[in-house]
């Protein structure tokens, strides 16, 4: 029941407004819904994320915690109030220059928090900037570029100049979609629905395993006239199941008679927004019969464990396996053998934008506008749920406020489509934060045992690995993790004899899916610790040890793939080595005198195959020129903040031979762009980037052919004509004279690329990926040994990206990856039912991020566009191992259970002291 509305008068962005609102509702809701200002974002409604930060009488507050009634007679400034006459202000320009907005969902909050500071202090120092931004979370950037941008506002700067034709690749081009993110104009998943859209709300399982019955609904309908439709499993016209794999659609859109994890969708209420919000949870007639739930890998694999899915009595979803050489012989030849066991928990993606979107029915088609990483997969998934042809579904990606793998699986898509399909009305939905956290996929908890051996000279001879991965109640990406992990488990080293296995285990816990690295970050904990242990036993410096064993062109990986080129690991290690030596020595000297706060330095390396494992994952890109000379890249590679829009244009523009500034784009709309695959597996720059290069080259070839010009000719695309200069010759194409091909375009080039891979045989041998990224990171930490707290002070990250198409964005990925790696190492653990919000589930704030020096190594990949390969996931993988290594130097303790929370580390320190150990 809503309160009666009252007129509240206040100044909004300098103009007087008078709005009839519920005075007890949140200011954020009033701004967004009543006044239509969607620039203020909502990530939690609990004060935790700061995305809703606005200025109230010039001071930053969270609009989600301000009663609308309290703004009467006061001044409210939102992000929409920052731009004067549509031009970016100095702060916004600084953000743009620095690449401080990635996905942009936190950006309005960051800008408002920074504005508050700058009004009081025009030249703040770093500390003051961090204090001012401390209440706004960002999951993408690692905060470094945001802080730099705020520090840089005071300095007058020339606006960036767009690179000329042929010089876009490698340029520090500002994001092509950057401005909208800075002005609040960019529309995210919850910003797109028409005003008259109905609201959909999902009722979810409060139990991890239960049977249920839905009672009679007449009462509910009668008591809530605005409730138009209650959707249950019976309403699903097609297949009531979804899942990443074509043959495993095991997760119901709406549960049928049982639920398998807490947070599973049971029914959906559809109707007028106010009425739907007002329905008390208790009035929804679901009768529960809870059952004993399977929690954790150990209980799932116990002989008498109940089956999570009835057709999998042993709770094993799938197994992965890899055998190379003779591992027993390898161990027999080793002089030093080391081993260990590691354990990690669920990790939440914690994108600041919860799942959201809207759907509408257009004749016999359905259109879903949604925040997503995978529009074509969404299309096919939605179609099979509705029982219609994929062509009848159109997915239009909104801006995506962070994904990190969590928006690869469908969430609201099938529900919204179903509701709009059945009611014929537009329907919207945005998950609340607790709902998002309870229902969405997570990083797989892992239980790993591994063993490695080396000769006295430090040559690795054998590696054995087993990982159990808790894949939760449904398959999601579980098989991918089980496949990807054995391939990567040795780390980026040459190992002649390997035996690896993995198991994806079903439990009554949230489905574990894709999260930046697909299990490889967990495996990296093991291989990097083993490297350190072997180095120690062999008496070799850890970096020297890694260099000695590093993969290099000409060597074979654990799958028997011979690497031909672009293996920059040694280069990365050599780049971090000088820092390593300085920092290690300094730490030893300091620790000799400091009793309580100990320093340590650690190293982590990684490798990561770009693209899907051993399966085709093609991408097609198209670029067109319209009759009036507009160049459009039809880009199916969704920009989830990583900058795909910008990178694709940089690549395509250079291939076509025109300035990047003239290339426009359409992103991800399945009606208007070809399938470029999903934005995951660090594949877009490598795979879709190559397709964009081929598309640009194709269009260029056509233009040159039409004008009989040579390959070096210069192309200028003008308003109605294309001019081609070939030495002294000058040709023209009259665009108006050409017949239209499609969507107003008279010329079109297209390109498709599918990285060359082969299937893996029963021993896991083959060519799983076209290329690999490599990196080495070092971290310096300070451990307060009396409290068990760890502060990461600084890091150096050297990454071989083949070619940095846009160095700003590469740095941004590395900063953001490090921030997430730090969270994984030190603070993040999702516990179903217990940490379903952003104050109990902690992610790093601006104050937790170390200084980061990024070193970009470019060992070109011949297959990639201009030599480029991926960086998205590689950025995160080495961070936790480096931090653990640093904790070891500081304390003498090898922590094997993540996250290393203060209580765990302190307990380990106390146990160690009791054992009389001193490192």
């Amino acid at each position, binding site marked *: *029941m809503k*309160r009666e509305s009252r007129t509240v008068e206040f100044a909004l962005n300098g103009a007087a407004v008078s709005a009839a609102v519920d005075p*007890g509702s949140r200011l954020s809701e009033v701004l967004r819904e009543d006044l239509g200002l969607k620039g203020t974002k909502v990530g939690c409604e609990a*004060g935790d994320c*700061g995305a809703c930060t606005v200025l*109230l009488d010039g001071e930053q507050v969270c609009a*989600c915690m301000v009663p609308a009634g309290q703004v009467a007679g006061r001044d409210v400034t939102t992000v929409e109030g920052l731009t004067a006459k549509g031009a970016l202000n100095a702060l916004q320009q600084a953000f743009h220059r620095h690449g401080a907005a990635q996905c942009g969902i936190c950006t309005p909050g960051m800008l408002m928090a920074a504005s508050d500071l700058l009004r009081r202090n025009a030249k703040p120092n770093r500390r003051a900037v961090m204090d001012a931004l401390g209440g706004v979370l960002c999951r993408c950037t690692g905060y470094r570029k945001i802080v730099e941008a705020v520090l840089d506002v005071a300095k007058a700067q020339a606006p960036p100049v767009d690179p000329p034709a042929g010089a876009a690749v490698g340029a520090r081009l500002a994001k092509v979609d950057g401005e909208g993110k800075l002005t609040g104009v960019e529309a995210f998943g919850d910003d797109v629905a028409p005003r008259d859209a109905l609201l959909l709300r999902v009722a979810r399982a409060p139990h991890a395993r239960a049977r249920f019955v839905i009672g009679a609904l007449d009462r509910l309908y009668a008591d809530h006239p605005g409730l138009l439709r209650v959707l249950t499993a019976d309403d699903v016209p097609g297949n009531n199941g979804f899942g990443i794999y074509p043959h495993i659609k095991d997760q119901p859109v709406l549960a049928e008679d049982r639920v398998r994890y807490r947070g599973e969708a049971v029914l959906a209420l559809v109707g007028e927004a106010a009425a739907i919000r007002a329905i008390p949870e208790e009035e929804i007639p679901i009768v529960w019969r809870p059952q004993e739930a399977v929690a954790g890998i150990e209980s799932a694999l116990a002989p008498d464990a109940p089956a999570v899915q009835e057709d999998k009595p042993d709770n094993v979803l799938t197994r992965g396996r890899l055998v190379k050489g003779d591992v027993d012989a390898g161990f027999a030849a080793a002089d030093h053998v080391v081993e260990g066991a590691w354990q990690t928990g669920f990790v939440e993606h914690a994108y600041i934008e919860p799942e959201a979107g809207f759907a509408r029915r257009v004749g016999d088609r359905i259109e879903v506008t949604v925040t997503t990483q995978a529009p074509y997969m969404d299309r096919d998934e939605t179609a099979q749920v509705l029982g219609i042809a994929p062509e009848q579904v159109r997915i239009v990606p909104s801006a995506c406020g962070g994904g990190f793998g969590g928006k690869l699986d469908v969430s609201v898509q099938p529900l919204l489509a179903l509701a709009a399909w059945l009611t014929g009305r537009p329907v919207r939905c945005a998950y609340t934060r607790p709902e998002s956290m309870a229902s969405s996929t997570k990083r797989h908890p892992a239980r790993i045992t591994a063993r490695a051996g080396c000769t006295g000279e430090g040559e690795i001879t054998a590696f054995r690995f087993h990982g159990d991965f808790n894949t939760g109640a449904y398959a999601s990406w579980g098989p991918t993790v089980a496949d990807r992990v054995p391939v990567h488990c040795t780390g980026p080293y040459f190992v002649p004899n390997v035996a690896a296995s993995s198991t994806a285990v079903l439990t009554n816990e949230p489905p574990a899916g894709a999260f930046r690295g697909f299990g490889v970050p967990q495996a990296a904990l093991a291989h990097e610790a083993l490297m350190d242990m072997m180095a120690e036993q062999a008496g070799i410096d850890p970096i020297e040890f890694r260099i000695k064993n590093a993969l290099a062109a000409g060597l074979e990986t654990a799958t028997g793939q011979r690497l031909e080129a672009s293996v920059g690991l040694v280069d990365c290690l050599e780049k971090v080595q000088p820092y390593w030596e300085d920092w290690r020595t300094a730490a030893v000297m300091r620790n000799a005198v400091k009793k309580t706060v100990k320093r340590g330095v650690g190293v982590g390396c990684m490798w990561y195959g770009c693209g899907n494992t051993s399966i085709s994952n093609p991408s097609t890109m198209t670029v067109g020129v319209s009759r009036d000379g507009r160049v459009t890249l039809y880009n199916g590679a969704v920009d989830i903040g990583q900058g795909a829009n910008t990178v694709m244009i940089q690549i395509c523009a250079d291939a076509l031979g025109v300035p990047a500034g003239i290339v426009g784009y359409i992103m991800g709309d399945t009606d208007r762009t070809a399938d470029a695959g999903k934005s995951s597996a660090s594949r877009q720059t490598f795979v879709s980037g190559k397709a964009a290069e081929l598309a640009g080259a194709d269009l260029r070839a056509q233009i040159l052919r039409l004008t009989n010009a040579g390959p070096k000719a210069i192309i200028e695309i003008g308003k109605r004509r294309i001019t081609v200069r070939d030495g002294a010759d000058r040709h023209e194409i009259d665009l108006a004279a050409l017949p239209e091909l499609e969507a107003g375009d008279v010329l079109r080039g297209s390109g498709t690329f599918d990285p060359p891979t082969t299937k893996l045989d029963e021993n896991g041998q083959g060519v799983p990926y076209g290329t690999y990224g490599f990196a080495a990171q070092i971290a310096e930490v300070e451990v307060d040994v009396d409290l068990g707290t760890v502060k990461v002070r600084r890091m150096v990250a050297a990454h071989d990206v083949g070619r940095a198409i846009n160095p700003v964005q590469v740095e941004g990925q590395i900063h953001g990856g490090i921030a997430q790696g730090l969270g994984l190492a030190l603070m993040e653990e999702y516990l179903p039912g217990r940490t379903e919000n952003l104050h109990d589930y902690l992610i790093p*704030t601006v104050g937790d991020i170390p200084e980061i020096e990024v070193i970009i190594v470019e060992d070109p990949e011949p297959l990639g566009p201009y030599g480029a390969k991926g960086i998205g996931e590689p950025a995160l993988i080495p961070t936790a191992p480096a931090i653990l290594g640093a904790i070891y130097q500081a304390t003498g303790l090898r922590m094997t259970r993540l996250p290393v929370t203060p209580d765990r580390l302190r*307990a380990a320190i106390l146990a160690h002291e009791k054992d009389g150990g001193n490192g």
Partner: protein
Amino acid sequence: MGSYLRPTALGQALEALGEGPRTIVAGGTDHYPARVGRQIDEDVLDISALRELRGIADTRKQVRIGALTTWSDLVRAPLPAWFDGLKQAAREVGGLQVQNAGTLCGNVCNASPAADGVPSLLALDARVELSARDRVRELPLSEFITGNRRTQRGHDELVTALILPKPGKGARSTFLKLGARKYMVISIVMVAGVLVPGRGGKIADLRVAVGACSEVAQRLSALEADLTGRPMAAALAKPEHLAPLGPIDDIRGTAAYRRDAALTLVRRALARLMIAP
């Protein structure tokens, strides 16, 4: 249907509370987070327009913190050294957004075991002023908060102020918070201390309180008694001084860890207090 009142005079507010219970909202920073995904339809008394309740007033014997005083108000106010600990706590409550809106009284009334303001206020012997339409009473803070999110406030009462008796001359204070990240973090343990130095390097008065280690933050009276009158240089806390604490295991830390960390923080707080500024 829920009604929403936002009176401009205290009398009106107390009158309204006298007519029936209402949810009181000040800064809203505990109110809204407790209602995520729920329709907010209760009867609300928004006290934010009661201007007379905002601000810090110094009378001769005591300092009065009005109910609408925000954390930021406190940080910005020029106050003597014995407020340093409370100010330090204020700077570590949430982010600036929360400090700008949230009130000290709201923190006390919400009565979370991890309320960062409470240990400092306990160490300052704070009293809570409760006003109803027909009466005003004062309770020691230690009696006001009775448990996890439970207080002695009657349905018809509004907390109108926190009252701090002035400690002895030269008093200084400190606050230490332990959390698992830098900003916006719920305390695992926090410790507040107030020291009045005496002659000859002796401790004239000492008060130490520990939060997040029991349902309600606790003063360590045995420690205070042991150390009062002793030389500052010999101020050592022993594990048995933590007897009043009853920490529990939760997502932020184990009970054993809390006890251990509390001792470390108490020792560090003492060390800080003993150093003359």
